[in-house]
């Protein structure tokens, strides 16, 4: 099986989780952002190039269910996945906490980036006092889900975990 056959069902599953399951399971009124997590996991497991591409696709899927400008999530997710991929190639892939911490920071950053880009595009309501709480909560929820997301993404993108330091 190749990426072309593995990725579509993973994307479909992520969309179902993102739109149907996790919105029903809100903690403090906030739901995990599964499609953003998928983009981050792709950046961590496959690097900046593929991460950004998958982030763009995942973002377009997310935009299909939102009233915000179409392409806004795609832009935010691809930038976050690229940054994670670039950052991921400079760190040691040892221990479980580094990817989880990365997922937390990147998810929270992704939420803030989405809101700020939205603000630039005239969506003033996205930036409010609640933004920090939403970003932190999405970061926590996505970090908790990240070990599973990393395994699935690694399988879907047919990559192998990096066992040592990667040269810049």
């Amino acid at each position: 099986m190749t990426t072309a056959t593995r990725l579509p069902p993973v994307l479909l599953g992520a969309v179902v989780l993102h739109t149907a399951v996790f919105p029903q399971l809100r903690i403090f009124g906030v739901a995990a952002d599964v499609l953003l997590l998928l983009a981050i996991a792709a950046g961590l497991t496959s690097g900046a190039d593929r991460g950004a591409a998958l982030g763009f696709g995942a973002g377009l899927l997310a935009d299909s269910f939102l009233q915000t400008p179409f392409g806004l999530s795609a832009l935010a997710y691809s930038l976050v996945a690229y940054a994670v991929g670039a950052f991921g190639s400079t760190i040691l892939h040892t221990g479980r906490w580094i990817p989880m911490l990365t997922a937390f920071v990147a998810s929270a950053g992704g939420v803030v980036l989405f809101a700020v880009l939205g603000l630039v595009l005239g969506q003033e309501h996205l930036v409010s006092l609640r933004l920090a709480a939403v970003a932190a909560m999405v970061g926590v929820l996505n970090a908790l889900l990240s070990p599973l997301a990393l395994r699935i993404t690694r399988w879907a993108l047919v990559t192998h975990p990096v066992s040592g330091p990667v040269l810049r």
Partner: protein
Amino acid sequence: MALSRRGGRSRLTLVFLILTSITVITLDFRGEGAGLISSLRDGAADTLAPVRSAAASVLDPVGDALAGVTGYGDLEEENAALRARVAELEGSGLRGEAAQEELAEARRLLELDVAGDTPRVNARVVSTPVSNFEQTVELDQGGDDGVAVGMPVVSGAGLVGRVVGVSGSRSTVRLVTDPASAVGVRLTRSSEVAVASGEGPGVALSLDFVDAEADVDILELVVTDGLDGSAFPPDIPVGRVTMAEAAPGELQRRVEVLPVADLAQLRLVSVLLTPTR
């Protein structure tokens, strides 16, 4: 050398994706890709509608339990406030009488036909918002049933929101509490006209443009103004004033309004089939 080439290709990919995103956003803004983009959105909404409905009905009790656990502090505060209110009313015969009147009015409001004989489509709320930023719900009636973007949505108690997206079999409603929502309103006793803006989930609406000298009562009913250009018919109950303060030197009074419709527990609503612009 190889790594440098890979880095260059990555940056090229990123630049390409950024430019593509900006192009898509621009097309959406200018309405030039409206057909394709709305087809994509409609297709996505209709395709996943059964899955989302099924997930909502299965996970609803779990979601309610989670909301109960994580909202325990709010419930405690609400409980304390209600206890204080009960104690206050019990302490005075006159106040007790006022509470009876308040209760009777609340009952009348619940039975009130909020939009007269305006043609309507009744709909069931089938899923909650996908986003952490938008206060929207999805209804099981769409364009095939006569629903169009811009139509007001009401519950038995009052205004719920406005339709912002429609596919063949579904529609998306932006609730009045959404920070992007603004409704032209009138205070029934003082006849002040204002704009009620959403402030987020579980937070009272704020009224803009209320004169600092205006005489606003707590619990005063706020209804849609129905002025020319308004998206809503007149006299639909929106909420009740819960706070009205005027700071010295300010030109506007700070007024908060609690929606009369229970937006956290919406099940059945009506879409008013009013002409849309």
